[in-house]
């Protein structure tokens, strides 16, 4: 159960978290590898340094002790050997003879024991001797090539180094007993008159013995361990800080804008596309802008849909109303016609019935004109003379109340070529372009419709100009935008908006523009021929 919940939670780890975790892991790995690598290098370098120092140390020690050895000052040697220990991490010093017997040692109990009998762990006699004598103890075969390297053996906390003590003339010519000792020996008759002390060493020996030193690496190791700990700590802390910084910055740069976007899409899915999402940074800013644009588009589409639905329902209503009128109107027409045909009525009565019939026919005409505006959904393109449409429109509107004080002028050249248009739709547009200015020209004015043909552009231009108030600049900018849902209540009485007019013109591959002149407004429509 818990595992399932955890798994589900894992799915919802945010982008910021993922990026920062990933970064943290990358830092840990790279810095870890780097640290390990440099630690190893450091250790090797330190050990090399120590080995070198040990080497130097034993050489130096050998030189220092040589004089005491030459003078056979054994007591001095023992003291020296014991005193050297303790400084610089020197654990023990020994002087051995060539056969491996310890002659002097900082550990007195070792004296006269073979080196293999000491408590040195892991140092076998074999290693010691074999470094020169490839074949065990066979003096004739020795390999001096590897000599230098094998002189130093490393263990965990120790470096063990030994130096050969080379034979020199002074070694085998100096009396091992000093003159003082010789004199004292003669006096006490240990040494007879004809006897001398023989030197301990003879000329045949190349190597008299060895001096070996054990150096502790404990301090270095401790330092290295400390460094290692510090590096690990540093890596972890750095990784953590980097992760945290990354987490918050990605949250700010990416996470929050994406969250806004997600919420925005949720809202759109629920039908609300009015609230814009705040812009993010960089590319996400563009994304937010595109999203907001999309919302505006959706809003536009929605309002257009509502508009056309409203139009459709108005159309249906008009249809029904017309039908309600048409049946009784048939009665009026037919019956008045019937009365007119009655032969024995006087002229005045016939005249009256004719008036009735005429007015009834006018009603019929008006209704048919209204119905033609709410015409079908699919445009039906026909070859039309634009002048006919204009004249028809004028004939309808001039009866409207708004137009009682308005003078309509039209200039239509007779040589105008025909256009392929849906006459119903274009008439809708023209009707609107006359009705809209008439709303503000009830006191009077002039509506001018000028048509001309441009052979160069192969298009017909229709210019509607009025002497009205003109349109304020800020409205002019948005005048072809679809109406907001909020404005639908204050819908113009004309029934379709300029946005729909623009759509109709666009459908015909034409253009429509509105400008203010000094004395009113001008609408220019072009239609391709």
């Amino acid at each position, binding site marked *: 159960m818990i595992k399932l919940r955890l798994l589900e939670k894992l799915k919802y780890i945010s982008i910021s978290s993922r990026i920062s975790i990933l970064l943290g892991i990358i830092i840990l790995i790279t810095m870890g590898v780097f640290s390990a690598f440099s630690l190893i290098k450091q250790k090797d370098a330190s050990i090399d340094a120590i080995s070198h120092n040990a080497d130097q140390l034993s050489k130096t020690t050998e030189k220092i002790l040589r004089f005491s050895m030459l003078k056979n000052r054994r007591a001095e040697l023992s003291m020296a050997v014991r005193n050297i220990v303790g400084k610089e991490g020197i654990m023990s010093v020994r002087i051995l003879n060539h056969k491996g017997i310890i002659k002097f040692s900082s550990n007195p109990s070792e004296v006269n024991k073979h080196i293999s009998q000491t408590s040195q762990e892991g140092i076998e006699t074999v290693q010691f001797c074999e470094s020169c004598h490839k074949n065990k103890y066979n003096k004739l075969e020795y390999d001096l090539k590897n000599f230098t390297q094998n002189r130093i053996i490393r263990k965990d906390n120790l470096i063990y180094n030994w130096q050969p003590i080379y034979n020199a003339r002074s070694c085998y010519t100096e009396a091992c007993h000093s003159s003082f000792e010789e004199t004292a020996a003669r006096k006490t008759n240990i040494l007879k008159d004809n006897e001398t002390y023989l030197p301990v060493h003879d000329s045949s020996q190349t190597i008299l013995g060895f001096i070996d030193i054990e150096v502790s690496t404990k301090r270095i190791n401790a330092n290295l361990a400390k460094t290692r700990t510090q590096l690990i700590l540093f890596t972890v802390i750095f990784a953590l800080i980097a992760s945290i910084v990354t987490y918050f910055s990605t949250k700010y740069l990416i996470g929050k804008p994406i969250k806004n976007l997600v919420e925005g899409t949720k809202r759109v899915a629920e039908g609300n596309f009015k609230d814009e999402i705040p812009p993010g940074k960089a590319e996400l800013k563009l994304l937010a802008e595109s999203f907001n644009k999309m919302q505006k588009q959706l809003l536009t589409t929605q309002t257009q849909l509502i508009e056309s639905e409203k139009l459709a329902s108005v159309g249906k209503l008009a*249809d029904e109303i*017309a*039908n*309600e*009128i*048409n*049946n*009784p*109107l*048939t*009665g*009026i*027409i*037919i*019956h008045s*016609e*019937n009365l007119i*045909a009655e032969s024995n009525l006087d002229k005045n009565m016939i005249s009256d019935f004719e008036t009735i019939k005429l007015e*009834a*026919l006018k009603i*019929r005409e008006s209704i048919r004109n209204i*119905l*033609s505006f*709410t*015409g*079908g959904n699919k445009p039906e393109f026909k070859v039309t003379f634009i002048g006919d449409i204009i004249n028809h429109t004028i004939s309808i509107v001039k009866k409207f109340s708004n137009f009682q004080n308005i003078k309509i002028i039209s200039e239509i050249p007779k040589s105008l070529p025909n256009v392929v248009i849906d006459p119903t739709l274009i008439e809708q547009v023209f009707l609107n372009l006359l009705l809209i200015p008439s709303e503000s020209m009830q006191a009077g004015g002039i509506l001018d419709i000028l048509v001309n043909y441009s052979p160069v552009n192969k298009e017909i231009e229709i210019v509607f100009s009025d002497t009205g108030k003109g349109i304020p600049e800020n409205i002019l900018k948005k005048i072809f935008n679809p109406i907001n849902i909020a404005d639908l209540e204050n819908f113009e009485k004309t029934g379709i908006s300029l946005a729909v007019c623009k759509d109709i013109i666009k459908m015909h591959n034409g253009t429509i523009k509105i400008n203010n002149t000094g004395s009113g407004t001008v609408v220019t429509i072009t239609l391709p021929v």
Partner: protein
Amino acid sequence: MKQTIKILIIDKEEIILKSVKKALKNNDHTDFVITTCKSALEGLKIIRTDKFDISLIDPILPGMNGNELIRRIRNIYPALPIIIMSGYSTIRLDQLNSVAEQNESFKPISDILKKPFTTEEIKSVIKKALENYSISN
């Protein structure tokens, strides 16, 4: 000799039935024998029993879809000239016609008479429909 034409008028509005009767009386060349009814079912019943030369129908009738009515009339009387009367806009009538045209067993609707019509118009439409009918037969 005067021609006798038997007409069936189906319309739910009384005034239409009355007006058509008025418009078609007192004709010089033809005598119209007019039968009227107000519902689809009634009309179908009458068609089964009587013979007519032409029929004027407003397809918007209670109880039956206009297309359905015409299809049934055609089943009974495939060749009967039918004129559709309607007070609605032409769009609905176009839909009606296209349905009829799609089905090849139907003869297309002879004509559409838009309401309101004058005496002249209804007479002219009937005349034309009858002429077309006699030409094709």
